[in-house]
């Protein structure tokens, strides 16, 4: 348990650190990119569905897999489209 907490606290600092100097121009793509990254809940959704025993679990899990996939692929694609505009 304490291991997980350690990871959590360290990740907080890393999260603060990596975006602390971002310019205004990149606020929107950064938000959108971070949005895609929390789509990692897809991993949780896959794990839970992969070991689901009851129909209820299966249904909840599959809906979660679907929604998380939309979050992931949509998030990365939309971010890329934004950033594409910036290239010279």
């Amino acid at each position, binding site marked *: *348990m304490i291991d*997980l907490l350690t*990871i*959590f606290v360290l*990740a*907080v600092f*890393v*999260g603060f650190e*990596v975006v602390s*100097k971002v*310019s*205004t121009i*990149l*606020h*929107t*793509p950064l*938000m*959108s*990119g*971070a*949005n*895609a*990254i*929390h789509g*990692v*809940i*897809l*991993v*949780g*959704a*896959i*794990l*839970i*569905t*992969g*070991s*689901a025993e*009851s129909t209820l679990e299966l249904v*909840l*899990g599959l*809906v*979660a897999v*679907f*929604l*998380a*996939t*939309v*979050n*992931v*692929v*949509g*998030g*990365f*694609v*939309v971010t890329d*489209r934004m*950033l*594409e505009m*910036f290239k*010279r």
Partner: protein
Amino acid sequence: MTVQLMYLVASVCFVLALKGLSSPKYARYGNFIGAFGMLVAVVTAYLHGVVHNGLWILIAIALGVVVGIPAARSVKMTAIPQMVALFNGVGGAAAALVALAEFFAVPDTTVMFRLATVLTVLIGSVSFSGSVVTFLKLQELMTTRPVLLPAGQQLAIAAGVSSVALCALTMAVPNGFLLWLLAVVGLALGVLFVLPVGGADVPIAISLLNAFTGLAVAASGYVLANTLLIVAGTLVGASGTILTRLMAQAMGRSLANILFGAFKATAVVAQGEEQRTVKSGTVEDVAILLGYANNVVVVPGYGLAVAQAQHAVRELVSQLERRGVAVSYGIHPVAGRMPGHMNVLLAEADVPYEQLKELDDVNPGITSVDVAVVVGANDVVNPGARDEPASPIYGMPIFDVDRAKSVVFMKRSMRPGFAGVDNELLYNPKTTLLFGDAKDSLTKLLAAVKQL
């Protein structure tokens, strides 16, 4: 072992992705690295964690891809903010569902796991319903103004208190019904939380909800004892919080003021409806004004993007430059519907980076600017934000275009801006109004300037 190693690889990719996304040079690589990390994580989870239902999972993923990619591909650049809100919302919902499913799979756990479960369900539901409301606002399917329900504040407090009580109760007596109830209360809380946020503040609410979803994912990582979910969720939660603060700072407001400001600033917007005179000009007048100026600043806003006039404005600016006029663009941090949104839209129209100036670059020299051209912007040049403490947008930094030698205000109509506030600048004697569709006006202006 291998699984943990793969998750570590994915975590590192996510850190590098966020790092890359914060610098203009590496942003696109950053996004690729993030996507790569995600692929590694998902394939690892599938190969090692799936005992059964494998086919069902693949079908659900395929459906998600079929829905997600076309939506992301076809969305107009002007509608990006609401798309991000929507993607954020489904992520929050997914987190809440994962925690619910895990609860039904393993109902008997330790207190810490129950805490993580109730937090995931609560934050995930808030994030989902809040994001849906921001989507509706930005898509203008509902009013963009702050919505103040009668006793809305009391309702929000009641929902907040009952959600905390339900969390405590569910932890003491793990019960599926209570957890569902918590999800429902969370949904209500999300709606009540976002309804009073209006106008230019909506994007900041999205950013905050984004951070919320990150936290929900991190909490779900505890539920599943999965380090990757904890790391990635926390990264997004932390960076999202910082980003939200940066955005609020860019608007010169505190976060508390943005989220709860509307409760106090009750609809004071209902001003006297007397007829006031404005000065409107013809295309030729404006062309002469611009063609013989030395120094012009263009302040574009969301209206420019809606009219798809980015290219037209760039052509006009090039023409003016050929005549020796010095032109720059004043880009407000919240121009468009999201911080940095206007930069994206202008970059799409091949406007060179160097011409884009921020507030601090423009305002000090504004008195020597001959003409400030406001295209489809409103709130970001509203002197009320600077001078009238009663104004709902008071405190937001603006371009002081009222201090330029003259102002050309291109507007479709006298309708007020996104924040719904009347603009004193329109009645300023220095201001010439040019009514009409932005693209149409700009094209005519270009032709008129060429004639000079």
